């Protein structure tokens, strides 16, 4: 499913592919650095509440977003910094949200778990596991009823697969021919519960058969493979107006949240997965073809660091939401 050519003299197509892959690297690096910074700021007490890091899983959001158009919709979970960044939500607006500031992308109401950006059809982070799936089905239904050719991408974890809403939502989407791309980020754990201790059948992609939904699984550490699989799946959803389930096999390098002492897996296991760090893999892929030069990579690192620093500065500079506006956003209809 990859598009890699053998390493010979670079054709224009290969150049384009390389520069695209550099873009992928840039996005993944932004997610990585942004979250490393967020973890630091959490320890410093600048960010509060729950913070779920995506580190290790960057290839998934990054690869999938390549397959989506601006008019497509996205539904994500509480572990959604990566998705928001890859979708183009400004890092400053995300960081400010985690600071709880007025310039945050949810005006300080949502925090890390509830990032929203309607202008990018980023329909938010949902923190009730499984709770985003029905919403995605509804977005797909709206598109169908309005005969629009756009799709909804719905991210959720392996843990969500156990919830009844997974089952109900896949059935609804299939029954009603809805253009929803279901994306299961299988990182092998739901908090501290390993896949084989929460699923009697651990082949998630296969579960789609129970709803006559086509499905496949892809190596979620290889961003190029993710992009290819996501493009194929998204194109199919767009073309057929029917759902598809793509399972992305990945791993989180950090604990579930900042509260998690991470007692349920061995350091060894984590280390083994880090060998397949998506950034390392992509870098190796680029390097194996001789590109890009070290200074280009260093520049990219600098740029990304600068972007993260700017995001923090934006958050620090943000005004706190005034307490007087406490009841402002409860209803869209303003009280008379």
């Amino acid at each position, binding site marked *: 499913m990859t598009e890699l050519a053998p390493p010979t003299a670079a054709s224009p197509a290969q150049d384009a592919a390389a520069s695209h892959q550099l873009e992928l690297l840039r996005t993944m690096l932004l997610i990585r650095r942004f979250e490393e910074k967020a973890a630091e700021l959490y320890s410093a007490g600048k960010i509060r509440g729950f913070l779920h890091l995506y580190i290790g899983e960057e290839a998934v959001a990054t690869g999938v977003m390549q397959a989506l158009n601006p008019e497509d*919709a996205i539904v994500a979970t509480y572990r959604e910094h990566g998705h928001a960044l890859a979708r183009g939500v400004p890092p400053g607006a995300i960081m400010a949200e985690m600071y709880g500031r007025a310039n*945050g*992308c*949810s*005006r*300080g*109401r*949502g925090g890390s778990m*509830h990032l*929203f*950006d*309607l202008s990018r059809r980023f*329909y*938010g982070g*949902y923190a*009730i596991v499984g*709770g985003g*799936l*029905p*919403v*995605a*089905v*509804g*977005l*797909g*239904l*709206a*598109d169908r*009823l*309005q005969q629009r050719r756009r799709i*909804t991408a719905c991210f959720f974890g392996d843990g969500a697969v156990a919830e*009844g*809403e997974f089952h*109900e*939502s896949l*059935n*609804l989407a299939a*029954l*009603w021919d809805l253009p929803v791309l279901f994306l299961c980020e299988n990182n092998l754990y739901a908090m501290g519960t390993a896949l084989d201790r929460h699923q009697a059948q651990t082949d998630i992609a296969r579960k789609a058969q129970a709803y006559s939904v086509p499905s496949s699984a892809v190596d979620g550490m290889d961003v190029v493979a993710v992009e290819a699989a996501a493009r194929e799946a998204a194109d199919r959803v767009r073309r057929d107006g029917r759902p598809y389930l793509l399972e992305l096999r990945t791993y989180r390098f950090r604990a579930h949240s900042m509260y998690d002492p991470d007692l349920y897996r061995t350091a060894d296991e984590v280390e083994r997965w880090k060998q397949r760090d998506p950034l390392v893999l992509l870098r190796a892929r680029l390097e194996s073809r001789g590109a890009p030069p070290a200074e280009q990579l260093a520049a990219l690192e600098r740029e990304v660091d600068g972007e993260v620093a700017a995001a923090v500065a934006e958050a620090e500079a943000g005004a706190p939401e005034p307490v007087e506006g406490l009841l*402002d*956003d*409860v*209803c*869209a*209809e303003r*009280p*008379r």
Partner: protein
Amino acid sequence: MKTTYRDAVRLGLREALQADPRVFLMGEDVGRYGGAYAVSRGLLEEFGPERIRDAPLSESSFVGAGIGAALGGMRPIVEVMTVNFSLLALDQIVNNAATLHHMSGGQLSVPLVIRMATGAGRQLAAQHSHSLECWYAHVPGIRVLAPATLEDARGMLGSALRRPDPVVIFEHASLYPVEGELSDDAGAVDLERAAVRREGGDLTLITYGGSLGKALGAAAELAHDGFSAEVLDLRSLRPLDVGTIVESVRRTRRAVVIDEGWKTGGLAGEISAILMEQAFYDLDAPVARVCTAELPIPYAKQLEDAALPQVDRIVTAARALLPRR
């Protein structure tokens, strides 16, 4: 025209479907079956299966799909067969529908109408007879309505669809066959104000939905004894029209709240607490409550009757507050 509450709801649905192509009705058996309470009979033939959409038994997900469809630009009307089954969808309603506007800092809004039947009185026993309006009325971010009359049955729906926020409409199942007059040009109704259904000066009977008839019955009995009871129909359970409630009770100085929910932690207690806060010094007697007894609704008729608010219990509660005549 002479019609029924059921037909009035259907009329409201038809008008809404005709008026706005974004409106559609979705729920279990709303189409081919014609609605569990025959409310939507005929609509499938008129509007087709895309807009009169039969849903599988998946309450959580089709209600959630209503939320998503509202986000996507539609104006869904989701029917949950009864409030009992809505427990399966509460997560979507409370955690998503009611919060999305807020959590997104005002970016998203969810113009979704959820209709459901409620109430006991038909010997359907403990899993089909709840009155959980009070739970919904507890939740910020949603509006809760309870049409008790034909006008409201027809008109509240259209008015609700014009709001940008989620609205939950409770139709008491025993009202569907009730007959009455409905003026042909009845249309949108106000959603903010409680309605005085009978004027009176000696005490206020405060109620809504399926208990309105019983309250009016009690008021008629009290009239025989020379007491004039004002009967207030709350209409909107969230937000409550506190102004009208307090104004009436300040005037009559006595109140009985009638509510088919269980007494403890129910809506009647909320009204009583509001009167405590805002009419304490005007009260000549403590506010009384007539609610459902604290048990799952039993099947046997005499037990169910004994569990529910009835005219005689309302009259007794009222008399206890009134001076002897």
